[in-house]
């Protein structure tokens, strides 16, 4: 038995999910091997507790390209024949991991947030139907299983006391049909919501663009910084600089007051570390109530109106 973890890095920095995958891999059997794919894999910090071997997979491309990762991973799987391959449930991995699983006929599941071994079988847990139900999956008849793991579930593996063994490996890349050109940073924002102590966050529940002004006024009165969930940014009602969540900002204010936010997984990833989370939603089953410290099932407009009177 063995576990292969694919390191994730952007612009020379190892992403946290890599260290989380290492921790998650401990639940599985056998030595844990971390593969770093890139033009300078030796520069990436992968000396973490629980890593038995690091493979530096040298390719011409410095930055992520899905064809390159696919070819490199297929070469590694052919050589090492791991039983479990762990990758992050991340934008990069979505570009190649399902293709590798399809091509090689692997067991596969994504956005997995719990794994265990039970009587020689791998059991993975994930959510369905807007996180309202969970399901346990297994992989009968599969030689190997590829799992895409949800970020921010497992703690990051700490530094290793002794460096693991390192293997250098070159992979010839036959071609790359989707080529990285450049990175574009978010435009400099008027506000940095990551620095605020008190965020008033609004979501789909506010219903209409015309209502934004109401919450701008409320946030001013309450001395809060206005933040938003993704749908309002997608609709063009709120600037992306105000977006909390996986594709937006990760925030950790003292108080996070959420009005009309149901609590999609991608949103939770960006705010669950907040000091105190207060959620107001008219849906008693809103997923955010599971992550919040305080909740109220109520009409957010009525609560907002009453709050305004108090400030």
């Amino acid at each position, binding site marked *: 038995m063995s576990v292969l973890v694919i390191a994730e890095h952007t612009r020379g920095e190892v992403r946290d999910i890599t260290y989380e995958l290492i921790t998650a891999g401990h639940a599985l059997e056998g030595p844990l091997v971390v593969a770093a794919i890139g033009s300078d894999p030796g520069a990436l910090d992968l000396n973490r507790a629980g890593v038995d071997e690091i493979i530096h997979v040298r390719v011409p491309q410095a930055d992520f390209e899905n064809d390159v990762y696919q070819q490199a991973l297929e070469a590694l799987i052919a050589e090492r024949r791991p039983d479990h391959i762990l990758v992050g449930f991340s934008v990069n991995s979505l570009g190649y991991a*399902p293709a590798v699983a*399809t091509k090689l006929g692997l067991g596969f599941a994504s956005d997995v947030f719990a794994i265990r071994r039970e009587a020689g079988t791998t059991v993975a847990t994930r959510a369905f139907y*807007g996180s309202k139900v969970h399901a346990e999956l297994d992989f009968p008849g599969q030689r190997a299983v590829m799992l895409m793991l949800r970020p921010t579930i497992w703690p990051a593996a700490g530094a290793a006391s002794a460096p693991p063994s390192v293997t250098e490996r070159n992979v010839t890349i036959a071609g790359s049909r989707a080529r990285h050109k450049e990175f574009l940073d978010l435009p400099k924002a008027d506000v940095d919501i990551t620095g605020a102590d008190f965020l008033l966050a609004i979501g789909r529940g506010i219903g209409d663009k015309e209502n934004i002004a109401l919450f701008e006024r409320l946030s001013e009165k309450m001395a809060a910084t206005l933040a938003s969930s993704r749908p309002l940014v997608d609709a063009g009602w709120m600037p992306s600089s105000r977006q909390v969540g996986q594709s937006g900002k990760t925030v950790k204010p003292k108080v996070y007051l959420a009005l009309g936010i149901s609590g999609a997984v991608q949103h939770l990833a960006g705010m669950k570390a907040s000091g105190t989370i207060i959620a107001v939603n008219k849906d008693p089953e809103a997923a955010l109530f599971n992550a919040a410290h305080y909740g109220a099932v109520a009409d957010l407009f009525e609560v907002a109106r009453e709050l305004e009177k108090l400030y």
Partner: protein
Amino acid sequence: MKIVVCVKLVKVVGDEVEFTADGLDVDSDYLEHALNEWDACAVEEALRIRERLGQAEVIAVTAGDKKSEEALRRCLAMGADRAVRVDSAVTDPISTANALASAVAPESPDLVLCGVQSSDSVQGSTGTALSELLGLPRVAVVKKLEWSGAGPATVHRELEGGLVDVVEVDTPAVLTIQTGINQPRYATLRAIKLAEQQEITLVTAPAGGDPAYRVRRMFTPPKGEGAQMLKGNPSEIASQIAVIIKERLK
């Protein structure tokens, strides 16, 4: 010029949940249905390419049972030219991709668009799996698309934290479309009526291999500690919230 858009009729769970007798899925009486939000953006993007280029055939494809044709009719009402359903049970993303490929490959499309993920499964994997089966290049999580209709396309891939990766992708390609790329148009009542009459091509699903996973059991998640619920009328709730905020901001 042919653009194929792969779509899914997603299931939405309401306030209450009951499971099927075998405990492997939610009882269909407790489910509502809708065209997947990400797929609506993919359809819209295809229609805009058609409008920009002046000509293109937009073909909506789904894999599912008779009921899933509701998603296709919505696409037709938005403006898709025709629709194809692969008659299959929806399971894991790789099996779904296999079913879709049997309808998409014979079309030899110039571009294939899928939603990034479905709201009921959130695997994010069907489009990438499909690209492998079709032997096409792909880009996942596309927030912007520039394409002249021939040669490589330039796309913006939206990474975590909002960082954008500009990618040049050879075509034909499979792109998975992120919400926010556009605002999908509404179908007019008349278009919805007309779509009811349109013919949907039926394709038999190919024999599947082993599924990528098997559901052992489905259950409502443990509530955990959950939130302490504030009771009362809106005024009382607001007062309690104000007290908590004042306390925590000290």
